[in-house]
Each structure stands twice: as C-alpha cells, then as structure tokens.
C-alpha cells in the first residue's frame, strides 16, 4: 500500500513557498511564488478563459485565449504561461485584453464547422462557453471554411473529427505526460494544421479516453458514448470506480435510470484528473446493453496492454430464483433460510461463506456479523477477480475495489478460493453461501471450483452467471452504482459510493438481503439503511474511524451544472 506517483505537472506549489503580492483587477492578494497567473486570476473570480491550459498538464501557451494585460508589459501576456511576480498589476478586463481575447475567439471560429446540433461535446463545450461569455457577436466572415477529415478512426476507443479541432494540443500532452506514450502529433501548418497519429500508429494507450475529456471541443469523441446521449441532459452523481484497488474518483453520468458514461472526478490524492479506459467501461456490467462498444477492446499490439475483458457481461439477475424458477422475495428468503438452517443444524463445520472483495464495506460488515457473530463460523472465504495487469500510473493489479476493506473486516479469518476448492474436493464443505459472484469461477468462467460437489448452494449475486445457475436459491443483489456504501482503496482511504441509478429488477442491497436472511436464520440484525450499517461499522472497525458518509446529494443535470469544459 504505497502512494503511487501520478504524472502531470502541479501548477500550484506547496503552500510553504514564499508569498508574493499581486494586484488583479484592483484587488490585492498574496499568492505562493510560482503560482500560474491564470490560476491566480481565476481564484480571484476573474474567470479568464482558456483552451490549451489544463491544471494537470504543462502549459504550451498555444491558444492565446488567456491573454491579460500586465502593467509595464508592452503586449498582453498569456496568463497560463506566466508565473506571478511580486507587485505585479494585472488587468484581466482592460479594453485591450477583452479585445484581443475576442479576436482570438473570432479567429478560432473562422474554420470551425457548424456542428453543434450533431456534436457530442455540445452543451459541455469550452468553445461554446467562451464564445458566449466573452464574444457573442455575430460572424463578420462568410468565407468558405477549410475542409478536413470528419471521421478519422484514430484508435479502438476514439474517433477524431479534424475540422472541430482547435489545435490546443491538450490531447497530445495527456498522452505524453499521463500515459507516457507519444501517440498523437500535429501535422501541416496554418489553417491546414491537423491533429493526427503517425502513419501505422494509433491512439490506443490505456489512458486514451482522457483525451476525450480534456478536448475542449468535440474533436475527439468516445466510440462508446458517441451519439448515445446529449451531454446536457445527463445527470451526475459522484462515486468511485469499481475497476481496481486504486479507487479512482468519478462522476456517474446517467439518464433515465441508465448509466451512460463514467468521467473522472478530481482527487489529488488518488487519481488527480485522470482515469483509465478500463475503469470507464466498468459500468457495462451494470447495464450490459448500454453504449456502443460491446465490451472492453483487446490489448494493443505495442506491449502496453490496454484494457482486458475481465468479466463476461451475463444478464442481470432481476428476480429471486428458487429451484431454477423466479419466485417472490418472501418465498426465496424462506427457502434460503430453510436450507441454510438445515445445514447448520447438521453441523456448522460443513457450511462455508464466500465474501467478495467487490462488495462495499457495509455489505461485508453485515455479512461478517452474520457469519462470525450469529452463525458462529470460525472462518470465511474471500473471492474476487483475478490479478490483472498494472502500471505505475493508476492501474492496480488487484482488480477488486475493496480488497483492503474485506481484509480488515475479515481480520485474519479469511481463506482463499484455493482453500475453498480443496475443501469442496475433500467434502469438508457441503453447503455454501456466496455473496457476490464476480470472480468466483475465475477468469474463463470454467473455474476450478467443483460446485457440483455441493449439496446446497445459496447465492446472493448480481448476474445470471454460472454460479447463480448452480444455486438452489439465488437472490438478486444491486451493483455498485445502484447502492450506497463505501469502498476502501489500496491507500486505505474509505471513499463513498453513491446510488446513481435505480436497482435492476427486484434486486436489493447486500446488507438488506443479509438482514432479512439473518431474521430467517433466527438472528437479529435490524439494519434499515446503508448509513446505519456504516455508522455501526465505523464504531467497531478501526480503519473506518475517520470515514465520512457525506451529505445526501440530488443528481444535478449537466445543463444547469455549468460547462465542465
């Protein structure tokens, strides 16, 4: 559990630095020496526009959109490229600064295609925002626009529209500085300048979709999200990526109960501004049919592995199943309670419980209470997805979002799936309760677990996979984006997961199913909301001592949330 360095330049140095006094639009304020002037201006509320600058990347000052007047300077200066200096006097709204910025916008728009109605970025486009905020004048130029390629297949997950590109080079710098892989280039000159990949190469690094996020216009679009949904109609809910142990902070963008895309959310301690492509497609397991891409594309040819498909998108388990047919919740819980009770009465040593490192802390806590406190079992098994590829940027080899939480809640009482396989083969375990089926059977689905040796299998799972099919009773469980809870990442940070979309079918959160099941088994575990489970776990468990549940949030529609830019 070490802190992994994340690439990208840091615009604002540590606060211990020497302070300088700067006057911006008549207001005087102290800033740490070396602060980028653009950041300083916008901290003061000047709202200086920019295209090529990004707080997580280096500044080339190519777009000239952030020009401001500095007293004593003969020409307006690009504020993204200028560090603050002592006694600097800055005018962000002088007539000249406003005029040059307006001229830059006019210049940028000369060859911009009239694409807003069909552009995926419309509604969250920085060009739209800046033009409307700072110019809003009608066109003075009715010349013929330079034609460029509209649909360039630059990689497995991205399409480029060269006409829309405003040549800010942010995408190039994301590849260079975040993915550490130079895959994009500028070619040609003047109004014929284009963004392109080198011949025979493609944009396929594992962080390529970050280029779509940082693109200020709709030049780079995600194949998965392309034409799927108008951006301004999406609602946003903050959450955590379930793809690996890093726990990247993200926003779930959803509409009408379906997740449409996942977008990174800034957290300087975890993922800064970025997220891997594999993580962005983890929503597919919640809604196997949403989006354009079938699954995660195959690894790329250059050894830098792109995303690997690590789960089959089986359909969701929508209703409780007993004996292979759908039944009401009451009947399913009765049946599950009866078979488990019978097995426990026959001897609790033959009963096994499988926890999942994919579950939230709350589900794990409820399951641990049931297993160890109420049923009196000494040990449980921990399942999870197999180890996968990793890098020193964001991706962790541990493909489970809550291994740290599961280990802490298990507190030395957890055994591996290998142990479970042996116990099944030897006949030591004849009854099994599985909560969360991701990875129980291994990557290829066949698995080494001889489930057919079991007399009784009760599954609480999200999908109609092979484990659920083998179960005597299968109870539908919500996916991560459908329930509230917390994940503990590899740094030990307890991060909040929020329900963004309604639960699939009749599925319920794990802690709720386990509360009902506990009652059927004669134990009392009366949880009525996830927050109550969290509060109890926080009292009992040392690693959750400083965790915060956060305030309740209503999803905000992006059109009213301001342009993300």
């Amino acid at each position, binding site marked *: 559990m070490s802190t992994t360095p994340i690439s990208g330049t840091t615009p604002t140095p540590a606060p211990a630095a020497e302070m300088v006094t700067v006057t911006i639009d008549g207001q005087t304020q102290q800033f740490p020496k070396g602060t980028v002037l653009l950041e300083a201006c916008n901290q003061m509320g000047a709202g200086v526009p920019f295209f090529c600058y990004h707080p997580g990347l280096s500044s080339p000052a190519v777009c000239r959109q952030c020009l401001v007047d500095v007293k004593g300077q003969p020409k307006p200066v690009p504020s993204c490229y200028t560090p603050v200096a002592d006694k600097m006097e800055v005018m962000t709204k002088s007539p000249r600064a406003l005029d040059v910025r307006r001229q830059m916008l006019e210049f940028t728009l000369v060859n911009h295609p009239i694409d807003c109605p069909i552009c995926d970025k419309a509604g969250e486009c920085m060009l739209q925002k800046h033009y*409307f905020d700072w110019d809003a004048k009608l066109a003075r130029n009715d010349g013929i626009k330079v034609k460029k390629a509209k649909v360039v297949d630059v990689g497995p997950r991205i399409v480029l529209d060269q006409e829309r590109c405003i040549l800010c080079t942010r995408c190039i710098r994301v590849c260079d500085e975040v993915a550490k892989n130079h895959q994009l280039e500028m070619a040609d000159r003047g109004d014929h300048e284009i963004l392109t990949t080198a011949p025979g190469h493609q944009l396929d690094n594992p962080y390529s979709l970050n280029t779509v996020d940082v693109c200020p216009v709709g030049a780079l679009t995600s194949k998965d999200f392309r034409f799927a949904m108008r951006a301004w109609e999406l609602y946003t809910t903050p959450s955590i990526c379930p793809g690996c142990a890093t726990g990247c902070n993200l926003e779930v963008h959803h509409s009408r109960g379906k997740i449409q895309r996942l977008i990174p959310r800034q957290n300087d301690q975890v993922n800064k501004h970025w997220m891997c492509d594999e993580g962005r497609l983890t929503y597919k397991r919640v809604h196997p049919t949403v989006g354009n891409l079938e699954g995660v594309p195959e690894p790329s040819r250059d050894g830098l592995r792109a995303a690997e498909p690590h789960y089959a998108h089986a359909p969701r388990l929508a209703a409780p199943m007993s004996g292979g047919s759908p039944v009401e919740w009451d009947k399913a819980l009765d049946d599950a309670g009866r078979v488990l009770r019978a097995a426990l009465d026959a001897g609790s040593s033959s009963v096994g419980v499988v926890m999942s490192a994919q579950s939230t802390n709350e589900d794990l806590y409820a399951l641990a209470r049931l297993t160890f406190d109420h049923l009196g079992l000494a040990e449980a098994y921990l399942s999870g997805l197999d180890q996968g590829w990793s890098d020193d940027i964001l991706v962790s080899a541990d493909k489970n979002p809550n291994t740290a939480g599961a280990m802490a809640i298990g507190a030395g009482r957890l055994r591996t799936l290998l142990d479970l396989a042996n116990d099944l083969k030897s006949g030591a375990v004849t009854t099994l309760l599985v909560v969360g089926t991701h990875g129980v059977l291994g990557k290829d689905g066949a698995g080494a677990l001889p489930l057919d040796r079991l007399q009784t299998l009760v599954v609480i799972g999200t999908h109609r996979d092979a484990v659920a099919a083998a179960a005597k009773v299968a109870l539908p469980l919500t996916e991560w984006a459908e329930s509230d809870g917390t994940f503990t990442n590899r740094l030990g940070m307890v991060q909040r997961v929020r329900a963004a979309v309604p639960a699939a079918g009749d599925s319920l959160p794990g802690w709720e199913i386990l509360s009902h099941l506990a009652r059927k088994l004669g134990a009392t575990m009366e949880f009525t909301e996830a927050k109550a489970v969290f509060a109890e776990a926080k009292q009992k468990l040392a690693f959750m001592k400083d965790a915060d549940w956060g305030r309740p949030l209503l999803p905000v529609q992006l059109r009213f949330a301001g342009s993300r830019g």
Partner: protein
Amino acid sequence: MDTHDGPLVPPQNRRVVLGFKEAEDLDAPDLPTESLPLNMGPSHPAMHGTVRMVLEVEGEKISNVDIQIGYLHRCFEKESESATWTQVFPYTDRLNYISPMLNNVGYALAVEKLMGITGDIPERASYIRVIVGEVSRITDHLTCLGASAMELGAFTVFLYALKAREWLFELLEEVCGARLTSSYLRIGGVSFDLPEGFGPKLLDILGRTRIVMSDIGKLLDRNRIFRDRMDGIGIITKEDALAYGITGPVGRSTGLAYDVRKDHPYLVYDRFDFDVPVGSVGDNFDRYAVRVEEIAQSMRILEQALATIPAGPFMVNNPRVALPPKSETYNSIEAMIAHFKIIMDGVHVPAGEVYSYTEAGNGELGFYLVSDGSGRPWKCRVRPPCLPATAVLTKVLPGLFIADVVPTFGMINMIGGECDR
C-alpha cells in the same frame, strides 16, 4: 366517579321522535334539528374549474362554508425550477388560462426587472405587449360575464360573449399560432412581430364587440331575474378587500380604486388615456358593472395603442438574450453557438431576487423570482390575484342562500389554473 343517581333530563320533558311522527310533533318547538353538510364540487357545473365547497346549510341558508382549493395544483412553481427561464412561459399560459397573454407579460417583466434590462426593451415590443394584454383582458372579462349569466339562465348572453371572445382568440391565433396556449412573449420582447393587417382587423373586431356588449347590456341590465340575484348579494366591504389583499375588478367593485396600470404604470400604460371604474356597494352587480366598463376602457387603450405604435424591432438588441436570426443560425458557427446556449443552457439571469407585479384579468399578478445566476429560476413564486378573492368567500357566503353561491362565485372569477398553480 359517576355519582348521578337519576336521569339528567326529567322524564316528563323527554320526547323521542321516532320514525313515525304525529302531525303536532312536526310543529313542536323542540324538534331536534341539525345543520346539513352539503358538498358543492369539486366537479359541479357551477364550480368554474375544479374547486370544492363544503357548505353547512340550515334549510336553504348557508351557515358556514369551507372552501377547499388545490384540485388543480400541478406544481407550476416547483416545475419552473427545472426549466430554463424561457421555458417557464408555457407554464404561465396555464395560470389564468382565459388571459394567457397577461400572464406572459407579468412573467416577462419580472425576469427583465431581475436582469435590469427593462429600459432596453424596444418600444414596439412594449406596445405589442400592451395590445395583446388588453385583448386578453377583454377575453377574460367576456368569459366571466358570459359564463355567470348562463348560470343564471341567460344562455343567449353566454353565446354572444363567447362569439366575441372567439373573434379575439382567432386574432391572437394569427399573432402567435394559438388561441390559448400563446407563449408569445420572450425575455426581451415578443417572439414575432404583429401579422400584416392586424390593426384594421382588431379595430373591426372591437366595433363588432361593442355591439355585442350593447346587446348583453340590453339583455341583462334591466333583467328582473338577473338583477334580483346580483343586487345586494355577496357584498364585500372595502375594509375586507384591503384586509384580504383583494385587487382587480373584485377589489374595485368595493370602491378600492387600485389598478396597477394607473398606480404603478409599467410598459407604456402611462401614455394612454383610460379610466379605472370603481363600484360603490361591492355586491355582485358592481363586479359585473366594473367588468363591463373595463372592457370598454381596454378598447380605448387598444385604439390609442394602435394609433401610436411605432415601427422598429420587437426584440431587445442583446445577443445573450435574443436569439440570432435563423439564417445566421444555420449559416454561421457564431450564431449557432448563441442559439444553442440560449436554448439549452437558458438565458442567464444574474443572481438576486425580484418582485414584479402587473394588472392581470383578476387583479395584481405578482411574480417573486430568485435567481442563483444560472439558466433556470431558483425559485418562482406567483401571487395569484384570485386567491384572496376566493378566500373572502368564507366570510361573504354565510347568511346567503345556496342559490347565491352561483352568481357570487361566478363574479369572483376564481380560475383554478391560477389559484392552485
């Protein structure tokens, strides 16, 4: 503990009336009686819109009344919080749906006041707003008069009034494409200019409407049945009108000479010569007479406005408020973006709050708006003018007969769309 050791009422005084009654029992002074609760509405032909009155009657006489509003509540105010500022216009059409233009005017003026662009609105737009507003006021009053007369048995009056209203609705349809759901105004002006030949057409309709009004007057003013049910019935005092906050024709019928157009002139009302009619008794007939006179005054305003309306733009010259011309939108990226931002993100209104009020068909229509600086209202509250007038009925109706509810309620002109929002 229970200590009484005998009946409380001496047995010789007790008389129990069972199913069978002797003739003398019915005249007996101590015949047990009780008041009867009687439901009027929510679905009743005389309950305009949907409103429920629970009357407590003793015989034909009303002893108490409980007015239950809210059957037409459709979350207008809450709904507005997830629509852009411009998208609220269609909702305002459905407030007082007999005079939608006046609601459009009230809302547009409120948003413009909050944005501080009231002074930038072109003169022609202000004139157009006055014209369509006054046409709407006439349709509002015609509907109220016609419907009330019909409920008192004068069906002909209803047909005459609605005939004239239809002429005006058809004219408004030429202006904005809809008889009723007009959504004609925009923040900063109106959506289209007046159609060709609008002035002569309106003058012609006004002439014909004058004849209709004269016919209605002949049918009603000296009509025994009508006068008996209007005169001295449902009297609202001036003090009550002030205490309840009643404005509009109902308030003016009590002698309260308050008209927002005169007392706090907005748009270009200060340029026109018109009178504010007031009543002296505050009964149903005064309310009828005030409305009849207001129709005549609205016609005066319309004639003056048509004579003096200037040429020029009908939308404010502000690219962040007014949509660019369609030809520009389709042919330049600049106008395309402007169009997109105004439609999708909404016109941005600076953070702040405002109360703005205008004279609508039923009185002072107020909009209290709060903006957080985004493209949609943070809060949009309406002061419905017919709510106080409906409230005062609990004081006016007791003591009247059941039959008096019909003309009194009709003359209050409670409109569910506006009152319940």
